[in-house]
């Protein structure tokens, strides 16, 4: 068997460097990453990269920053597997490999000019933050913005410092709820679904974008439909463990769709009858 070095490999990784690393909660760490040579990662909100740690492996991670901020991008990583645990040991200045971006992001052109209802549960706030920050940076292009967040406890709250700012913004309606409250928690307590009925929205011009664990979708979508938002105006981002990111390895396949190419963002109307999707 001969071995040839090839230039055009799909598995070529781009050298990058962690320029900032910050432990956000007990399990999540935020990384700011810059590609070598000041190259820009050309991505859309909602897309993901495959992080590469040589000798450890690769893991698909959604980008949590907005492309409006050039020069670097951010990944919010929960330590759950081999690669993500190894990532948590990285600090500013460490090397990291990047493939991508991959996948279909949020449909910004469709969302423009409409009211937006963002709903995120748990780690789902990470991919959604990419779109939220994009919308903030292009605030004129969108109508009303509602943000509903839910997490287990206030200690699990991601991007807590930013959330305080969202809360203060005049141009955003933001609410947050926790499943179990610490004594000093002044906000809502309960499932995220309890926040939805109280939101005042114009259903015909509102697009809902939901990101969270599978169990959350069923209940949240039910509440949103009860608000008369049409199915076509609901977008979700689904989680799968992509290995190749190029529609080959089969890991992320949902029936005839490849989450890595046809998603991870899907229109609810297109997948609602698809078993194994959620």
């Amino acid at each position, binding site marked *: *068997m*001969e*071995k*040839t*070095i*090839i*230039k*055009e*490999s*799909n*598995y*070529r*990784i781009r*050298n990058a460097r962690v320029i900032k690393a910050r432990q956000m909660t007990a399990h999540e760490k935020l990384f700011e990453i810059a590609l070598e040579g000041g190259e820009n990662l050309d991505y859309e909100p909602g897309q993901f990269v495959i992080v590469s*740690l*040589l*000798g*450890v*492996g*690769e*893991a698909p991670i959604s980008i949590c920053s907005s492309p409006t901020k050039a020069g670097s991008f951010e990944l919010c990583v*929960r330590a*759950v*597997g081999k690669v*993500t645990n190894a990532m948590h040991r990285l600090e500013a200045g460490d*090397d990291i*490999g990047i493939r991508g971006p991959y996948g279909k992001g949020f449909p910004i052109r469709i969302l423009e000019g409409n009211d937006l209802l963002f709903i995120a549960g748990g780690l789902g706030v990470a991919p959604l933050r990419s779109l939220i920050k994009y919308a903030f940076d292009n605030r004129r292009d969108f109508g009303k913005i509602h943000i509903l967040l839910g997490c287990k406890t206030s200690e699990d709250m991601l991007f807590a410092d930013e959330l305080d700012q969202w809360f203060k913004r005049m141009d955003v309606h933001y609410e947050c709820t926790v499943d179990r409250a610490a004594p000093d928690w002044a906000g809502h307590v309960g499932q995220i679904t309890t926040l939805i009925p109280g939101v005042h929205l114009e259903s015909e011009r509102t697009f809902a974008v939901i990101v969270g*664990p*599978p169990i959350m979708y069923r209940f949240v979508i039910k509440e949103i439909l009860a608000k008369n938002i049409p199915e076509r105006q609901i977008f979700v981002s689904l*989680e*799968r*463990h992509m*290995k*190749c990111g*190029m*529609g*080959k*390895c*089969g*890991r992320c*396949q*949902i*029936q*005839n769709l490849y989450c890595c190419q046809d998603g991870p963002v899907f229109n609810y109307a297109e997948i609602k009858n698809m*078993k*194994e999707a959620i």
Partner: protein
Amino acid sequence: MEYVILMKDDFGGFISRLAKLQKLAAPVSKGYNNFSFQEVSSGDEVALKYIPTIIPPKKFFMPRQETLLEFNTAKGLEVKPVVEHEKITLFGVHTCDLAGIQCINMVFSIRPRDYNYLIRKRKIDIIGLECNEYCDEYASCCLVSSHLPSGGYDLFLTDLGDYFIAHVNTQVGEDIVESIKYFKSAEASNLEELKSLRERKRALFKNEVPIEPRLIPEMFDRAFESGVWKDLEERCLACGNCTNVCPTCYCFDIIDETDMDLKTGRRYRNWDSCQLEPFAKVAGGESFRKERSARQRHRYYRKFRYPVSKFARFFCTGCGRCSRACMAKINLKETLNSLLNDRYASKPFINDEI
């Protein structure tokens, strides 16, 4: 020079000369009713009459394990993307396996193209070999029309008694014929014999499952909730044999391996299987095809339904390997028959004259 003939007496010489041109692999007997594509150098090693090999020739196109990158972390990040390849001729590939190669060619050729696969593929020459009759009761090649040649080879041999007739399909095939002097031009009588063999085959090979192939996707559209999948679940051992031996299964995992110096290493891809439980699992622990019924169903849909939308063909080649390899005797023809007998799945054509 579309058709040439090779006398059987010259077969040994043909194989020897072929093996001198470049590495040659052909079906070799591995004990009772087991065959494997292996390197050969003489004609007597080749099993001319063989049932589908344990592993299909996809192993030459997509090796069970192949290196994608080599790295050295001693000085920063030194990464070399590599492709492993070799010049090789495959002799004796049956039409079902030619169909299988055509399927994975499509998968790795659509964008984003897989350069590792495409570079390796260009180095492989293919000499097909016709099945004049069924290999065994597991085959369902007529159902998916892979019992007759339809391209995918450089040269294609058909046994016509004391000689082979060979269809020269490509320039590579022509080069083989010319560098191996044993071939003679085919006469009209040879072509007549080929024609009558094909006619005999048309009578011998019958639709192995009583459904019109064009109705299969529709049947699958209605079969997602069928009880048939539950029946399979009760028998399936989730061992992954069926996908390993399938000529069109190509799913893979990507794994890193570091050498003992802890600096150099490689990233490789390994065959994986949708039948194994962790395959569709995500980091949070959720598995999207937790039940064996869902995993078996996924396998069948990946042969008979999803590729029809994406590639306009079945990804089952009718080779019968999954049924032969199954320890729980899950049989593809039986499964299709069960779906056909599932009153809901087969509702639209239950009274059709099939």
